[in-house]
C-alpha cells in the first residue's frame, strides 16, 4: 500500500492523540506540530515505525515569529521516506525566553550541524547536543542575527551621507 498523507496522520493521531495537532497540507506536503518536549518521541516514532519509515532528515531550520507570544521560535524538520517517496514537515514552537529543545543528533547524525546553525542564528538551545557552538558566525558574537528584532537596513532611508557614496 502506498503511503498517503491521510495514513500518516491517522497513525500519528492513533499514537499521540491530541499531542500532535495543526495538521495541514501545503503544496502536497503534510505539516503538523507537537509540543516542544515531545519532539524526540514524534521523530523516533516516525523513524522506527516500519509502516512510516521517515529515516532521512532532509532539513532542519529555525523560524522566528516575534508576534506569537510564548511561541516565538519555531524549529522545522523536513523528513523524507525515500522508498515511498513522501515528505512531511514537522514543527515545534518554544518561547524565546526559554528556547530549550531536545537534540535530534542521536537519531540523525546530519542534525548535528543543522542544529548548530539553528543555534547560531536563532539561539535555540538544543539539550544534549554534543558540540553546541556557533558554526557560521564568529564565536564572539553575542546575539542571534536571524531573529526578527534585527532588521536589515531600510533601503529607502534618507539619513545617509551621500558624499560618502560619490553623490551630492
Amino acid at each position, binding site marked *: 500500500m502506498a503511503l498517503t498523507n491521510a495514513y500518516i496522520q491517522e497513525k500519528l493521531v492513533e499514537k499521540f492523540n491530541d499531542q500532535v495537532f495543526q495538521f495541514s497540507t*501545503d*503544496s502536497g*506536503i503534510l*505539516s503538523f506540530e507537537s509540543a516542544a518536549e515531545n519532539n524526540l518521541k514524534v521523530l523516533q516514532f516516525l523513524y522506527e515505525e516500519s509502516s512510516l519509515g521517515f*529515516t*532521512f*532528515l*532532509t*532539513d532542519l*531550520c529555525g*523560524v*522566528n515569529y516575534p508576534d506569537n507570544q510564548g511561541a516565538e521560535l519555531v524549529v*522545522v524538520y*523536513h523528513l523524507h521516506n*525515500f522508498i515511498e*517517496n513522501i*515528505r512531511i*514537515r514537522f514543527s515545534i514552537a518554544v518561547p524565546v525566553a526559554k528556547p530549550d529543545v531536545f537534540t535530534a543528533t542521536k537519531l*540523525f*547524525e*546530519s542534525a*548535528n*550541524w*543543522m542544529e548548530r*546553525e539553528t543555534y547560531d*542564528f536563532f539561539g535555540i538551545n538544543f539539550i544534549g547536543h554534543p558540540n553546541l557552538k*556557533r*558554526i*557560521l*558566525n*564568529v564565536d564572539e558574537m553575542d546575539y542571534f*542575527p*536571524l531573529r526578527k528584532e*534585527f532588521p*536589515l537596513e531600510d*533601503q529607502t532611508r534618507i539619513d545617509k551621507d551621500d558624499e560618502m557614496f560619490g553623490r551630492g
Partner: protein
Amino acid sequence: MEQHSHITLPKGSIEKTTTTLNIGPTHPATHGVFQNIMEVDGERVVSTEQTVGYIHRAFEKLAERRPLYQITPITDRLNYCSSPINNMGWHITCERFLKIDLPKRVDYLRVIIMELSRISDHLICNSIVGVDTGAYTGFLYVMQYRELIYEIYEEVCGSRLTTNIGRIGGFERNFTNTAFTKLEKFLNEYPGVLREFEKLFTRNRIFMERTQGTGGISAERAMNYGFTGPNLRAAGVDYDVRVQQPYSSYQDFDFKVPVGTTGDNYDRFLVRNAEMWESISIIKQAYQKIQAFKGADAEIYHADVPEYYLPKKEDVYTKMEALIWHFKIIMGEIDLPKGQIYSAVEGGNGELGFYLISDGGRTPFRLHFRRPCFIYYQAFEELIKGGMLSDAVVTLSSLNLIAGELDA
C-alpha cells in the same frame, strides 16, 4: 619566561604524542575557504575538526528584504561551480509557490542549461580528484570544455560564473543561433574528450590504488549523515530528485541513475563520470525536442505572467500597462500569497532545497537554503579517521565541497 599556551595538552600528559595540523583556511588541498584542524599520528589521521563560515554572507537574512527576483543573484553565489542549477531551482520554487505553469519549450531549454552546468560541476570535481592524486593533465584538458559551456551561458544570459540566468516564468531572452551552434559543437566534441578523460583515469593503476577503499561510507551511514546527490548514489542509494520529484519536465527524458557500491572515492568518481554521460544524452534529447517546435511555438521562451515577468522594453516606452508592470516589478510592489513551500532540485552535489515562508508581504518572511555540502561535510571525520593524511586530501576533493555553499 612567560608561558605560551597556544597548544593545549591533553590532561595528565607530559608530552603530546600527536601533531596538530591545520589544513586551510587557504590551502591548495581545500579548493575553497574552509579549515580542517587535524590531529595526526605520523601520517595517520587521529581526528579532525572542520571549521566553516569564512565566507558567510548572511544570505538568508538578506533574502528577507528582497523581492523574489532580487534573490536570484544570491543563489548564484551558493554553489558557484553550477550557478544555473541554483538559479533554476529558485525560479522553480517561486513558480511552484505562485502556481505558474511553464510552456514545454521553456522546460526543455532549462533542462539543457541545467545539464550543462551539471557537467561543468562534475568535470571540475573529477578533474580536481585527478590533480590531488598527481595527474594534472586531465584537469587542464577538460577545462577547455568548461570554457565552452561558459560561452554558451554567456550567449544566453551575458555572464559566465555568477550567471543570474533565467527569470521567474522563463528566460530573459530566447536562445540565439550562436548558442545553438555552440551547443552542437559541445555535443559533437565533448563525448570524445570525456572518453579520453576516462581512459586517463578509470583503469589507471595509480589512480585506482589511491582512490579505491579510501573515504568509503555505507549506505545506512550516508543516509544518516544526510548525503544526497552523487555521494549518496556512490554508496548505493538510487535517490535522485530528478526522478523522485520531477521538475522542469524531467519525466519526459529517458536516463539512468548510476549507482556505486562502496561509497569510496573511486565510486564517487565513477558515478560522476557516468552522470556526465547521462547528462549528454539528456541534452541531446532536449535539443531534439526543441527542434521539433515549429513556427510561433519555436519562439516561446517565457510564460505569460505579467506580475513577475518583465515586459519588453519597447512596450514599456509605448504602452501604459507595460510601464505599470515594469515599475511594480522593479520596485518589488507585488504582494506574495501566504503560505510555505519546500522545493528541491538535483544540484551538482546533491539535493538543493529552498524552504520559503511567506506571510503575504512583498518579500519572503523566511527563506532557508538546504545546502547539500553543508550537511554531508559533517561526515568528513568519519570518512578519513584512521586513514592516511594523503587520502584525506583526496577524500576532501572527491566530496565536491564548495565553500560558497557551505557558508551561504
